[in-house]
């Protein structure tokens, strides 16, 4: 991908993408669903549709944070033979305006670039290979032009090694804030926000929902005092949700399952899926803007949205 603007007042491309395009639209799809070639077209469609950041899922066989929609996408991607190397080659090829993030599980990061796994072909205990290491993945991600990493099974307490590697390579490591994150842990995590705070809208797994949860409003109220970009994900599926969430104080919305649903519905009709993805992104972005406008028009005591 092309280098995004780096000369700005913000810490990173990711933060800049949110602040400068406020309110931001962040979109997610699973790489390799149904093939890496299709993913390329879908990412470009989402970019055209107005995504300000795009998350690409690198599929892992045990996606414990995912609901049925994204689980199915991951299964399709794995069945299509998606590998980390194939994923990085896709990213090498992509030229989008929106910075790209990779979303994957920790084991995928640990194993990347490891020596060949031992085989116990003679029935004796295999020689254990060296301890797995996060750096090869981060180096490759930076080389491919990715701007950040999101790891749903890596809480801040375990993130030290990955955080250090990301810092060295100028990547953001985005942390998730759950409805259950409170007190000292909330303070600790908010003090080390990188890129943006990923605000999980509700307990449970990913998946498109019909409404905005009350937990979203509670979380945004609880996070109001922290001056970091906040984007809300888990369940957002419509322009009206985006409007409501931005109105409640978010700097961005994150949409995944609703887009994956579109991809699943269209199967091999890549062109039609791409068209609908672009339109869906545009609808979501319009919704987010509507939410921001209603704040500037009648929101007396609402916080001013950041404008560049």
């Amino acid at each position, binding site marked *: 991908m092309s280098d995004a603007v780096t000369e700005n007042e913000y810490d990173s491309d990711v933060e800049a993408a949110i602040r400068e395009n406020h309110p931001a639209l962040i979109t997610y799809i699973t790489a390799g669903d149904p093939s890496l070639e299709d993913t390329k077209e879908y990412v470009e469609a989402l970019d055209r549709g107005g995504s300000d950041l795009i998350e690409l899922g690198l599929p892992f066989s045990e996606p*414990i944070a995912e609901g049925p929609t994204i689980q199915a996408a991951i299964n399709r991607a794995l069945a299509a033979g998606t590998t980390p190397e194939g994923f990085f080659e896709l990213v090498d090829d992509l030229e989008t305006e929106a910075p790209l993030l990779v979303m994957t599980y920790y*084991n995928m990061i640990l194993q990347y670039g490891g020596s060949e796994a031992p085989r116990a072909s003679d029935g004796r*205990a295999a020689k254990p290979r060296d301890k797995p290491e996060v750096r090869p993945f981060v180096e490759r991600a930076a080389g491919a032009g990715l701007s950040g990493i999101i790891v749903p099974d890596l*809480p801040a307490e375990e993130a030290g090694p990955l955080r250090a590697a990301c810092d060295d390579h100028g990547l953001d490591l985005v942390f998730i*804030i759950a409805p259950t994150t409170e007190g000292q842990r909330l303070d600790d995590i908010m003090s080390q926000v990188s890129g943006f705070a990923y605000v999980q809208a509700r307990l449970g*797994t990913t998946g498109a929902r019909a409404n905005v949860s009350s937990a979203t409003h509670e979380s945004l109220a609880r996070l109001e005092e922290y001056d970091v970009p906040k984007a809300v994900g888990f369940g957002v599926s419509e322009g009206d949700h985006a409007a409501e969430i931005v109105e409640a104080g978010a700097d961005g919305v994150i949409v995944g399952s609703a887009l994956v649903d579109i991809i699943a519905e269209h199967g091999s009709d890549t062109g039609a899926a791409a068209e609908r993805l672009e339109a869906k992104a545009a609808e979501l972005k319009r919704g987010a803007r509507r939410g921001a406008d209603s704040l500037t028009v009648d929101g007396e005591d609402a916080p001013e949205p950041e404008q560049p």
Partner: protein
Amino acid sequence: MSTGDHERTHESNRERERERERERNADATFGDDYGGQYVPEALMPALQELEDAYERYVLENEDGFMDEFHERMRDFGGRPTPLQRADRLSERYDREIYLKREDLLHGGAHKLNNALGQVLLAKYMGKERIIAETGAGQHGTATAMAAAHLDMPCEIYMGRTDINRQRPNVYRMRMNGAEVNPVTAGSGTLKEAINETMRDWATTVEHTHYVIGSIVGPHPFPKLVRDFQSVIGDEIREQIREEAGRLPDSVVACAGGGSNTMGTFHAFVRDDDVDLYAVEAGGSSLEIDAEEGLAPNSATLSTGTDGVLHGAMTKLLQSEEGQIVESHSVSAGLDYAGVGPELAHLVETGRVTPVNVDDDAALNGFHRLSNLEGIIPALESSHALGYLERAAGTAADTSSGQRPRDEHTDELGDLVVVNVSGRGDKDLETVLEETEKRDLEAAPDVEVFDA
């Protein structure tokens, strides 16, 4: 405050922070790496709440928690279980063989030690609902029994494949009032059931406790489960001293996730003279088929590589790229691509020796104990017995397709304890089917069973 003061305060704050982190890490891991808490953020507060409860109730016996646990394990569970001298096996192997009879525990397996402990702990913590995964159905059954006993609502996640091959246990769970939720994802076995239980927990974590079924998962589960199971080894220690006047030369237990294993070993880890053998399922072959994402075994300690699964850094059966592969064993309870992080650590330090026997050897172990001692063991436990034959058997008979005698033959010593982690009633269908397909030296004639 001068700049110097300010810097010093800042420094000492950072120092204190690092100190706290060191302490936390020392607690959450075994050695430097194994263990940890690799879970979604939403679960972290619940894990910390559980750490606190573990410390207070289990480690410090607050409110007499451990007293109540032991009392209920006696009255409801039937503890202590016997340590029995196996006369025929002792003769066959020309040494003293003792069996720890966890098959006699209520429910028919060691699983109740952990299930009752955790359900009771959930009660002390004020939780209102219990969820658990199960593979063979033994842990699900034990959890359902414990939940009924302690009057807690209970839901069990079980893979579709496992439901089909372990029907009697599904009925037992339903009889005890538990909901059984089929999991259709993937191959529909234990790994998928754990995934789905974690997803439920991530949704209901505020009032629900997840009773994990082995010494796996994020900290503090591996320690918590081990401490409830370590009653096995504590009893063995006392019983063998009484019976034989000394500690055993070696202790043998099967290992899937490794809860009966660590439960048996924990009391002996400090005794360097006692050798500890963890027997894994060699399945039908130790090769991994990377193309198919399949390992026809679950010999994680012997052949696995380090990685993160279900909340912990441990040894795993995985592809080079980090995808977890499907494991296989004739015994559903050993059929898992991971293993407890504490066992991974003890294997790495050399304290525990990992060995494995294949499906055939386990089936022979099953028949031999049934036949010679009048005890029908679980197929899981049969792996430990299969290993005993290989390491101590008269097996000059490499001709019969048996593996040659094991390198540990002489190391097993004169006084050996084998943990019989469960009874095999649940496995009879499988054993009959698998025995008919094979020519097993220890098997009786099973033709009479054909209608």
